[in-house]
């Protein structure tokens, strides 16, 4: 297994790593369907969810994943912790580690925070979103959700919206490209990174063109603070030009799969009739999020490289 100590992003994983995580997530879907939604795989492991940014969905999803694997979990929100008193990231983590923890799930506003932490503590570190850098488990759950409906290789996937500020977009682009999808982005020029074509990504400036081309749309959330900073004129203007509406989708040559990482701004980036429509897999993404996070936790918990070989050879006919 090539997975190391930490999961920091999808950029440095191989296609084989990605498939291992997705394949491992499959049986975990079934665990969440059981009457007793719990397996003892991580019994006795202690996991800290260290969230320096507000998050509901991601934190709850990680917490369910941890609990369904029988790990013990502690949630630390920066607003109610010693971070408020000026303690720096490493001191916070070292203090947690001194209490003998096994893993840290970190959400932080600065790009690279997860790597910074992973290099300084012995516990496994999982990036739950770091600034504009990556949100690997979101990328993985998007891949899993697409793969549930169609083979990823050859799929035309377009990421719509504020790609410039989006860690979700970045993780999606890396993951989709590695698994053989064709990737495009679509949005106002002010919200697309310069030179993104260099990654092998197609660029559309009109949503109609993107819809005519794509099999899958991943519609990003438009953050309100982008208006204040002058990236776009107004929400209404954005919806009129880039909104993923039913009328626009009805003109598409084929049915498009609609993803959204949430939380949605209905009537800003996405039409309610699309979000709740038959081709929306937005709630499947949420369900798959728990399974994919269970897979990541499980693989990292046991994934000590020197033992990977032994794991491959184990089993046989002998139990």
């Amino acid at each position, binding site marked *: 297994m090539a997975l190391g100590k930490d999961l920091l992003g999808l950029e440095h994983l191989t296609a084989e790593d990605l498939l291992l995580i997705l394949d491992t997530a499959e049986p975990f879907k079934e665990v969440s369907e059981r*009457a007793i939604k719990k397996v003892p795989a*991580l019994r006795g492991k202690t996991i800290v969810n260290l969230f320096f940014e507000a998050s509901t969905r991601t934190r709850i999803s990680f917490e369910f994943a941890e609990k369904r694997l029988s790990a013990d979990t502690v949630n630390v929100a920066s607003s109610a912790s010693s971070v408020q008193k000026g303690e720096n990231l490493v001191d916070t983590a070292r203090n947690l580690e001194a209490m003998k923890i096994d893993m840290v799930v970190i959400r932080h506003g600065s790009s690279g925070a997860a790597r910074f932490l992973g290099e300084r503590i012995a516990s496994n570190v999982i990036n739950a979103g770091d600034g504009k850098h990556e949100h690997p488990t979101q990328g993985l759950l998007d891949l899993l959700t697409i793969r549930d409906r169609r083979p990823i290789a050859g799929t035309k996937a377009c990421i719509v919206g504020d790609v410039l500020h989006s860690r979700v977009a970045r993780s999606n682009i890396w993951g989709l490209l590695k698994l053989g999808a064709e990737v495009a982005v679509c949005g106002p020029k002010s919200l697309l990174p310069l030179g993104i074509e260099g990654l092998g990504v197609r660029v559309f400036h009109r949503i109609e063109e993107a819809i005519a081309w794509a099999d899958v749309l991943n519609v990003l959330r438009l953050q309100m603070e982008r208006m204040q900073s002058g990236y776009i004129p107004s929400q209404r203007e954005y919806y009129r030009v880039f909104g993923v509406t039913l009328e626009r989708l009805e003109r598409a040559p084929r049915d498009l799969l609609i993803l959204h990482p949430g939380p949605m701004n209905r009537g800003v980036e996405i039409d309610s009739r699309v979000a709740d429509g038959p081709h929306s897999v937005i709630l499947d993404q949420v369900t798959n999020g728990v399974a994919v996070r269970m897979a990541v936790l499980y693989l990292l918990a046991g994934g000590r490289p020197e033992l990977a070989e*032994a794991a491959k050879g184990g089993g*046989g*006919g002998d139990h």
Partner: protein
Amino acid sequence: MPPAPRTLVLDAGAFGRTLEKMAQSILHQTQDPRTLVLVGIQRRGVELAARLAAVITTAGTGAEVPRGALDITLYRDDLETVGPKPLVGPTHLPGELEGRHVWIVDDVLFTGRTVRAALDELADFGRPARIGLAVLVDRGGRELPIQADVVGAAVQTAPADRVEVFVAELDGKDAVELVRGAGVSGGGKA
């Protein structure tokens, strides 16, 4: 290094006869055949459970025997020592286990740790009236106080020996072979 010596424990004919004998023994030890459920342990236990179910259906009751599959990977107690098994197989059980006579079916009984894990996993799905254990091969070497109710073949082995079970559905042939001194974790069939 010369290849490890390999001896045939059961050929295809003996394999089939052993399964028939096991099926009889399971029926004989099940008070009410209508409560019978066969649960195979992934992987080869699942195929063996299917074979046993087919024999039981034709031999006696005529009714389809409910079957399930159990992947005990997430219930193992050795994640830290052997690392995660890369792929976890599916677990599915046929409906309620309440009041059922469940038979766990596996290919080889060795340390007993797999069966311990299977018992833990079954308990999370319900409370069967009774649980039995049927194995194709008992090779000794128990590390836990667990024994099988139905044994197809008992084989004397040393810890470094390996028992390999082949089933036609997965391996193209029915056979049980004993490889002397091969090493338990020496890359056997998973």
